[in-house]
């Protein structure tokens, strides 16, 4: 009987967020004042403002939250974070949610920020530092060959100007600058992943 009557109040998704999302323990501190939603320069362009996301978490809307593309629209301007009357680290929570959704494979497929972040980190870990040319090309061609050529043509002017200003090295396509101890960096990343996995296991 007790379980039945209290079941509605046992918000398992809020608990899940508290345990697994960076700074997730702050979500319950939100008082729904709306300052963050009104302060976000991107506000009008996303479906779920931080205020709304935090309420959805508390209302147990797991699928909707984790599949939302709102967290991926955050530009880290920190407007909400500095103005929140309850000092919630909103920007960090938004990134934490995005990361969690990504790990679970629920983040929206093809979401541009997610894609570029994925390409960026793959590139960075592989080379030990970012290879700008390869990263740019990968971004251009992420939606297929035809779209890639279109993108490249559209950005032609900027590309040529960067070449002229020696900000872009065409030979980087053959490898470009590498860092001294590439495998060392890869080991650091692998170790960090291992620690994170262990932490997640403990939280679960």
């Amino acid at each position, binding site marked *: 009987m007790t379980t039945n009557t209290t079941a509605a109040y046992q918000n398992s998704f809020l608990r899940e967020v508290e345990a697994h999302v960076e700074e997730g323990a702050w979500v319950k501190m939100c008082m729904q004042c709306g300052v963050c*939603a*009104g*302060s976000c320069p991107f506000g009008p362009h996303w479906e779920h403002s931080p*205020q709304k996301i935090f309420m959805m978490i508390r209302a147990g809307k797991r699928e909707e939250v984790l599949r939302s593309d709102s967290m991926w629209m955050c530009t880290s301007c920190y407007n909400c974070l*500095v103005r929140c*009357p309850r*000092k919630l680290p909103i920007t960090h929570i938004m990134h934490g949610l995005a990361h969690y959704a990504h790990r679970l494979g629920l983040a929206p497929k093809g979401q541009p920020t997610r894609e570029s972040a994925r390409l960026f980190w793959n590139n960075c870990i592989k080379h030990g530092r970012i290879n700008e040319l390869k990263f740019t090309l990968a971004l251009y061609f992420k939606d297929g060959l035809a779209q890639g050529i279109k993108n490249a043509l559209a950005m032609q002017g900027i590309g040529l100007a960067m070449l002229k200003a020696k900000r872009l090295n065409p030979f980087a396509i053959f490898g470009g600058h590498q860092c001294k101890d590439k495998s060392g960096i890869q080991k650091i990343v692998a170790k960090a992943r291992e620690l994170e996995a262990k932490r997640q296991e403990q939280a679960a």
Partner: protein
Amino acid sequence: MTAALEAAECGQQVLLIDKAPTLGGRTAQLYRYFPKMCHPSCGLEINLKRLKGNPKLRVMAMTELVAVTGRRGDYRVTLKVRPRYVNENCTACGKCAEAVSSEIPDPFNYGLSKVKAAYLPHLMAYPQRYVIDASIANTAEGEKAKAACPVGAVDLGMQEETLELTVGAIVWATGWRPYDANKIQPYGYDRYQNVITSVEFERLADPRGPTGGQLLRPSDGKPAKNIAFIQCAGSRDENYLRHCSRICCMATLKQTQYVREAGGDGRSTVYYIDIRAIDRFEDFYQMVQADATVSFVKSKVARIALNEVNGNPILHGVDTEGYHRYATEHDLVVLAVGMEPEITGLLGNGLAAAIVLDSSNFIEGCAGASADAGMFAAGAAASPLDVNRSVQSATAASLKAIQVVHKTVSTEVA
């Protein structure tokens, strides 16, 4: 005032000091006060009558406590008395004010208007004596005031004095000040003329205020018809004041009635997180909710922009009931600013060590063991309280102070 009167009426010797040139505090600066919407002059009159008839009570205006040592029953206090440049002979005839031409921002109207540099703080000021502002004391203007006085009350030779006395107990009733709205940058109080504070709005509504009681907006002097009230301006906010100032919801509900009573087609919109009509004031809230001239938007305004053409502030935010984004123009915005303890930042000379403050700088009590306590806080110095509750807390503090004096005197005798 209440704390002093209660003790004096119990037969204690009481010294009431106020750093202002008059008693009455900020209550005297309200146009009317909730919940009964009466004028503060009424309560003030009653208290002044009690005070004038009581030989046990002595008032020192323009006086501040600067240091305290000793212990319960035997405190040595150091007082600093600022020169008023006007002595007891003053009959408040006002000839000195007629004679001078310099003006200063009128503190009674929060600087919204000017007053002569020889002035009576307000009509019911007590002591009922003029003040010569220090800025003209040593000038030809000061001499003019002196020459004009028919009873020789102007004394330009007055100096700041320091006094030391011994007292048995101390009641701190130092009150509050409006939170500095300039610190709330997104609201642009410092940039937009038509964004004002709730205490300034009180003065606008008062027939004795700077606009003769008309709700005129500062930028162009036009009647304000479409007025926004922003709640928790500086309160309940870790970036500003962390406490709920407790009275500003009621103050706004009251002020919407000033708008309605001004007649015409005035409308009020209240932007709020939640309305905290404390205690029995829920009735008042319901009365205002039923008022067709008042609407409520559940949202803390995120920022204010300016319509450069007509000077209207534009409020930006998202409401909590449906998450609708709004950008709403109003003629005038009133920030319901929070109450900050007046002593914030003023404690020095060992005072800081003598009293204990809470995390918002309200006075909790005396430092040290409670059995040694001989200092008590009353009114808005203790907590953000309305007039009624300030008076109750003053009576309570006074009773504790009387006990201290009784107990310490009897131990000494024994």
